[in-house]
C-alpha cells in the first residue's frame, strides 16, 4: 500500500499500462459511436423498404444510405472494435507492452477520418458505384489502408518483442489478418486488371475475403484468448487452432466467385469456388468445435455469465453462418437464393450473430479486468436479450423474404409479385432492427460504465 504511482505502473502486467488502456478504450468508444450511426442508417433503410415515401431526400435515398450503412459498420464499428480488442490480446499473450500506443492512436485517427469522409461523400453521391464495400473513392481508401498498415506494424513489433518463446495462436490469426487485409485492400483498389468482367472477378474475391481474411481471423484470434481466459482454463486443442489458421487461408481465399455463379466469369473459377466452399467446413468446424470443447464441462459457469453467453452464441453464429454459406454456394440452392434477401440474412448472421456477439462477449469479459469497472449484470442481460431477440427476428424474417422472392421468381410470376410477397417480412425485419438499435444504446451505456478511471483497486491489490 505504500508503493508510489510510478512503482505501481512499473509493476503492472503488460496491457494494463494506463496509456494502453486509454487507447484501447478510445477504440471502443469510436467503434460504438459508429455502431450507433451505422445502425441508425440501417434502420432507416429498413423503414424505406416498407414505406418508400418516408423521409424523401437526396442524401437519405435508399441507394445512398445502403453503402453508408455497410461501410460505417464494417470499417467503423467492426474493424475498430476488433482491432481495439486485438491490441489487448497481442500485448497480454506476448507478455510485453504495446510497442507504440501513440501509433495506435494515430491509426485510430486515420480510421475515424476515413469513416467520416466516407459517410459524407456517399451522402452527396460521390462514390465508385455499387461495388460492395469498396464504394469509397480512393483517397479515403488510402487513409483507411494506412491505418491498417500502421496498426499491423505496431502489433508485429509487439509480437516481435515478446517475452515468451512461442507465438500464441491468437497472434497467428491477428498478424495474419493484417497481412491479408493489406494485400486484399490493395488488390481491390488497384485498377490495372479491373476493366469489364475483370472488375467482377476482383469483386467476388474482395467482398468474400473481406469477411474471411479480415473480420474472421481477427475475431478468432481474439476468441482464442478471451474464451479460455474467461473460463479460467486452457484452450481445448492448440493444434486444431493452427489447422484452422492454414485451412482458413487456403480455402477462404478461393471461394469469392461463388457470388457470381451462372455469370460469364470463367466456369473453372465458379466451380473452384463451390468446391472450396465445401472445404470451408474444415476451418469452421475446427474453430467452432475447439471453442465448444473448451467450454465443455464448464456449462454451469457459462449459464451464470452473460459475457460467456455472448461468446457461445457468437460461436454458434460462426458455425451456422458458415455452414449456410456452403449450402448457398451449390448451384441448385443458388437458383432459389441468389439475388434475393436471403443473402442479406446471411450477411447479418455473419457480421452480427457471429462477429458482433463475439466482440461484445470479449469486451464484457476483458474490459472490466483492465479498467476494474463493470456494468451491472442486469444491464448486460438487457443488452443480450435485445440483441438476441432483435437479431433473430431480423435474420429469420429477411431470410423468409428471400425464400418468398426466390419461389415467386421460379414460379414465373410478374416481378412485382415478389415485392408484394416480401413486404410483410420487411415490416418484421424493421421490428427486429428496432430492437437491435435499442440494444446498441444499452451497450453504449454499459461501455461508459466500464470506462477507465485511475488505476483500479483490483490491479492495485493484485500488485501490492
Amino acid at each position, binding site marked *: 500500500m505504500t508503493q508510489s504511482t510510478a512503482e505501481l505502473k512499473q509493476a503492472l502486467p503488460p496491457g494494463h499500462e494506463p496509456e494502453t488502456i486509454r487507447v484501447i478504450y478510445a477504440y471502443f468508444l469510436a467503434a460504438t459511436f459508429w455502431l450507433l450511426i451505422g445502425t441508425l442508417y440501417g434502420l432507416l433503410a429498413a423503414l424505406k423498404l416498407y414505406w418508400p*415515401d418516408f423521409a424523401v431526400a437526396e442524401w437519405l435515398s435508399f*441507394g445512398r444510405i445502403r453503402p453508408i450503412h455497410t461501410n460505417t459498420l464494417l470499417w467503423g464499428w467492426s474493424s475498430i472494435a476488433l482491432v481495439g480488442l486485438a491490441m489487448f490480446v497481442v500485448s497480454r499473450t506476448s507478455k510485453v507492452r504495446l510497442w507504440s500506443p501513440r501509433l495506435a492512436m494515430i491509426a485510430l485517427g486515420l480510421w475515424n477520418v476515413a469513416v467520416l469522409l466516407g459517410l459524407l461523400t456517399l451522402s452527396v453521391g460521390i462514390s*465508385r458505384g455499387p461495388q460492395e464495400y469498396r464504394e469509397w473513392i480512393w483517397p479515403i481508401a488510402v487513409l483507411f489502408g494506412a491505418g491498417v498498415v500502421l496498426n499491423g506494424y505496431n502489433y508485429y513489433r509487439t509480437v516481435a518483442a515478446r517475452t515468451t518463446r512461442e507465438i500464441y495462436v491468437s497472434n497467428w490469426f491477428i498478424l495474419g489478418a493484417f497481412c491479408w487485409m493489406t494485400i486484399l485492400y490493395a*488488390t481491390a483498389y488497384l485498377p490495372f486488371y479491373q476493366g469489364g468482367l475483370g472488375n467482377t472477378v476482383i469483386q467476388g474475391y474482395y467482398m468474400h475475403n473481406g469477411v474471411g481474411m479480415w473480420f474472421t481471423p481477427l475475431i478468432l484470434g481474439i476468441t482464442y484468448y478471451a474464451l479460455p481466459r474467461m473460463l479460467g482454463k486452457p484452450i481445448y486443442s492448440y493444434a486444431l487452432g493452427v489447422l484452422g489458421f492454414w485451412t482458413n487461408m487456403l480455402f477462404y481465399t478461393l471461394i469469392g466467385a461463388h457470388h457470381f455463379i451462372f*455469370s460469364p466469369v470463367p466456369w473453372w473459377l465458379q466451380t473452384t469456388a463451390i468446391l472450396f466452399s465445401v472445404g470451408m467446413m474444415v476451418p469452421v468446424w475446427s474453430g467452432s468445435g475447439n471453442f465448444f470443447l473448451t467450454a465443455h464441462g464448464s456449462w454451469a459457469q457459462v449459464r451464470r455469465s452473460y459475457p460467456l453467453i455472448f461468446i457461445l452464441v457468437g460461436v454458434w453464429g460462426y458455425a451456422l453462418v458458415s455452414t449456410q454459406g456452403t449450402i448457398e454456394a451449390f448451384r441448385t440452392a443458388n437458383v432459389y437464393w441468389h439475388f434475393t434477401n436471403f443473402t442479406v440474412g446471411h450477411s447479418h448472421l455473419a457480421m452480427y450473430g457471429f462477429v458482433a456477439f463475439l466482440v461484445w462477449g470479449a469486451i464484457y469479459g476483458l474490459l472490466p479486468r483492465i479498467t476494474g469497472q463493470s456494468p451491472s449484470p442486469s444491464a448486460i442481460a438487457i443488452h443480450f436479450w435485445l440483441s438476441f431477440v432483435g437479431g433473430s427476428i431480423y435474420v429469420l424474417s429477411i431470410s423468409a423474404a428471400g425464400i418468398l422472392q426466390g419461389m415467386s421468381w421460379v414460379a*414465373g410470376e410478374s416481378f412485382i409479385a415478389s415485392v408484394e410477397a416480401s*413486404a410483410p417480412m420487411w415490416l418484421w425485419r424493421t421490428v427486429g432492427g428496432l430492437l437491435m438499435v435499442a440494444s446498441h444504446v444499452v451497450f453504449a451505456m454499459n461501455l461508459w460504465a466500464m470506462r477507465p478511471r485511475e488505476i483500479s483497486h483490483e490491479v492495485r491489490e493484485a500488485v501490492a
Partner: protein
Amino acid sequence: MSLHTDHRALVAVAALGYLVLTLIIGILPAFEIQRTKPLADAPARTPEVSLGRQLYLDDGCGFCHTQFVRGLDMDRPYGRESLAADYAGEQPPLLGTQRTGPDLANVGIRQPSEIWHLIHLYNPRAVVPSSVMPAYPWYFLLKDEAAESDVVVPVPPQFVPPGKIAVASPEALAVVRYLQSLKQPEVPR
C-alpha cells in the same frame, strides 16, 4: 526455423502464401478476362447517356437492380444470357448481387417509353402502386407554367402540389436516356 517461434517466418509464409493465392484466383484471371472485346454492334455512348450512367452509379441504383441475365428460366423475361463481351470496358460493370427491383440489362427494349420512365422516376408509385423504389423528385422542377422547351411530365395529380406541373431536369432526361440505351446487342452467329 519454426513458425511457432519465428514471427518473421510466420508472417512471411502467411503473406506470400496469400499473395500467390490472390494471383491465381483474382489478379491473373482478371487480367485475362479484361481483354474481352465488345460485340460488334454494341453502340457507343453519347455524353448524355454517360451522364445518366454516372447518376445511376452515384445514386446506388445498382444495389437493387442487376444487369446480369443468367441462363435460367426465371431470367428469360429479362433478355438473353449475359456474356463477358456485354461488360467489355465497363468501369465498373454493373452485374449486381441483389434483385430488389427487376433486372435492367435489356430494359431499353422491354420498356422504351420516355414518358413512362420519367413518371416512374418522379414517383414509382404513380405507375406501379406496390413498388418500393425511391422517388426522385429532386430530378424534377415544379412550375406553375411550362416554358416552350420544357419536357412536361404527366404525373397523376395526387403526386404534385395543386396548381403545379412537373418538368424534367436535364439530369432526369440523362438517366432516362441511359435506361433507354440498355439494349443487349445481337450475338453474331
